[in-house]
C-alpha cells in the first residue's frame, strides 16, 4: 500500500537523479576532453580524420537540405509578403532566418543524425568489445584518444557546414524567388545585404559551434556508458540522437537569449 503510494515519487526521484547524473557526466567528459586538447601527444591525424568524417562527409546532405530549406522558405514567405505587396523583402527574410536560426539548428540536427549516432555506435562497440579497456591497458587516455578529436572536429566543422547551409540555401531562395516567382533581382539582393548584419552571421556560427560540442559530447558520453552487447550499442545510438537533438533545441533558446539580450537583461 505505502509502496504503491511512494512509487511515483520514487520514479520522479530516479528520473531527476538520472538526469543530473547524465548532465554531470557529460559536463565532466567535455571538460576532460577539452583539457586533453592542450596536453601532448597531439593527435592531429585522428582529428583530421574526424574533421573529414564530420565536415566533408556531411557536405552533400547539408547542401541538399540547405537548398530546399531556402527554396521552401522563399515560397512560404513570398505568400505572406504578397498580401501587402512587399515581395522584395522575401530574400532578406530568408537570409535572416537562415543565418540566425535555421542553418545552425537544422545543420545541428542533420549532423546529429549522421555523426552523433555514429560516434555513439563506434565508441559503444569499442566499449562492449573491451577496446577501450585495451587502450587504457596500453597507457593511452581513452578520452584524449577518442573524445578530444571528435569534440574539436565537431566544434570547428559545424560552423563551416552552417555557412554552407546558408550559402546553398540562398541559392535555392534566389532560384525560386527571382527565377520562378519573378522578384526583381537587384531588389532581392540589395535587401539581403542591407538587412543582414555581420552580427547575425556571427551569432549563427557561435550557435553552430555550441551544437557541435553538444552532439559530440552526447554521442561520446553515451558510447562510453554502453553496456550489454549489440543491444546496448543500439540503445546508446538511439538515445544519442534523441538526447542530442532535444538538447540542441533547448540550448538554442538559451544561447539565443544570451547572445541577443545579454546575461541579465529582460
Amino acid at each position, binding site marked *: 500500500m505505502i509502496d504503491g503510494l511512494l512509487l511515483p515519487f520514487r520514479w520522479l526521484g530516479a528520473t531527476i537523479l538520472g538526469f543530473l547524473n547524465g548532465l554531470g557526466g557529460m559536463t565532466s567528459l567535455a571538460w576532460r576532453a577539452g583539457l586533453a586538447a592542450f596536453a601532448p601527444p597531439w593527435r592531429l591525424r585522428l582529428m583530421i580524420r574526424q574533421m573529414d568524417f564530420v565536415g566533408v562527409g556531411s557536405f552533400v546532405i547539408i547542401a541538399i537540405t540547405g537548398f530546399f530549406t531556402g527554396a521552401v522558405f522563399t515560397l512560404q514567405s513570398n505568400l505572406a509578403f504578397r498580401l501587402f505587396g512587399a515581395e522584395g523583402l522575401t530574400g532578406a527574410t530568408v537570409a535572416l532566418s537562415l543565418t540566425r536560426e535555421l542553418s545552425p539548428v537544422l545543420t545541428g540536427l542533420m549532423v546529429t543524425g549522421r555523426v552523433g549516432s555514429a560516434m555513439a555506435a563506434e565508441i559503444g*562497440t569499442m566499449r562492449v*568489445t*573491451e577496446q577501450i579497456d585495451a587502450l587504457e*591497458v596500453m597507457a593511452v587516455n581513452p578520452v584524449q584518444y577518442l573524445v578530444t578529436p571528435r569534440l574539436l572536429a565537431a566544434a570547428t566543422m559545424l560552423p563551416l557546414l552552417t555557412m554552407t547551409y546558408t550559402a546553398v540555401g540562398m541559392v535555392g531562395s534566389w532560384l525560386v524567388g527571382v527565377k520562378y516567382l519573378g522578384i526583381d533581382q537587384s531588389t532581392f539582393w540589395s535587401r539581403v545585404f542591407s538587412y543582414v548584419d555581420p552580427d547575425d552571421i556571427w551569432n549563427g556560427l557561435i550557435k553552430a559551434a555550441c551544437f557541435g560540442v553538444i552532439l559530440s559530447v552526447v554521442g561520446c558520453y553515451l558510447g562510453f556508458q554502453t553496456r550489454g552487447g549489440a543491444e546496448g550499442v543500439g540503445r546508446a545510438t538511439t538515445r544519442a540522437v534523441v538526447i542530442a537533438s532535444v538538447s540542441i533545441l533547448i540550448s538554442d533558446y538559451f544561447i539565443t537569449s544570451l547572445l541577443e539580450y545579454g546575461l541579465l537583461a529582460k
Partner: protein
Amino acid sequence: MTDAVGGGGTAEDPVIEIRDLHKSFGPHSILRGVDLTIPRGEVTVIIGRSGEGKSVLLKHIIGLLHPDRGEVLVDGVSMTHAGPRGRRALLRRFGMLFQNGALFDSMTVFDNVAFPVRESGRGAPRGDALRQLVRDKLALVGLSGVEDKTPAELSGGQRKRVALARAVALEPEIILYDEPTTGLDPVRTHAVDEMILETAKTLNVTSVVITHDMQAVFEIADHVAMLFDGKVLLRVSPEELREHPSDVVQSFIHGRPLADASAGQLT
C-alpha cells in the same frame, strides 16, 4: 611443462600481491576479500565458476577497476593508489590478452601490433625497425603475411594470436590472459595453450591465466588458484588440485553439480 612448485610453503618471489580485495557492483558483492600472490616467472591459472569474479579480479590487477577495499601491489608498488604517472609506469610492465582479443577494428593487423609501440613515446622504433618488430612478434605467434588484413578478415584463433602479438609487442614482464581459449575448438585451444607456454618460456614472463578449461590447467599451470564465493579457496599445484579432497574442487574439475550448495569449506 615447467616443474611445478607447490603452492604452499616454498619460498617464492612474488611479483604481484593482492591483499584483501573487495568489490561490489550495486548490491552484488563479487570479491569479498581476495588474497593472492603471483610468483615471478611462472604461470598462475585462476579458475572458478562463471560469474565468480575472475575477470573482475584480473581487471583489478591491471588497474582497470578500482577496489572498494584492499589493494594490488606490483613489486611492492601499489597499482590501486598509483597516480597517473606511476600507473603509466606500472602499465608498461603489463601486457593483456582480452577475451575476444579487443583488437581495434578500425586498424589493420600491422597497426594493431604497432599501436603500443607507437604509443610508448619518444625513442620508439619507427619505419623499417617498427616493421621488423611487428613481423617478429607475429612470427612469434605463428602468423605471417597478415599485416594488411583487418581484424574482421581473420578467424577467431588468428585474432587471438594477433592480440597476443600486440600484448607482447613491448616485451612486458607480466601477461594477463582473460579466457584465452573460450570459443575455440579443441585443436585451436591446444594451440593457444602451447602459445601461452611458449611465450612464458621465450620471453621469461609471469603469466596469469583465467580459464574454465580444466585441460589447460593441467597443461600449462605452475600454480592454480580457485575463486569461490568471492575469495581464493585454495592455491595449489595442478597435481595437488587433482588429488584435492574438497567437494567443491572435485565437482569443478569433473564438471559435476555441487551436491550441497553451501559447501564452501575445505574439508
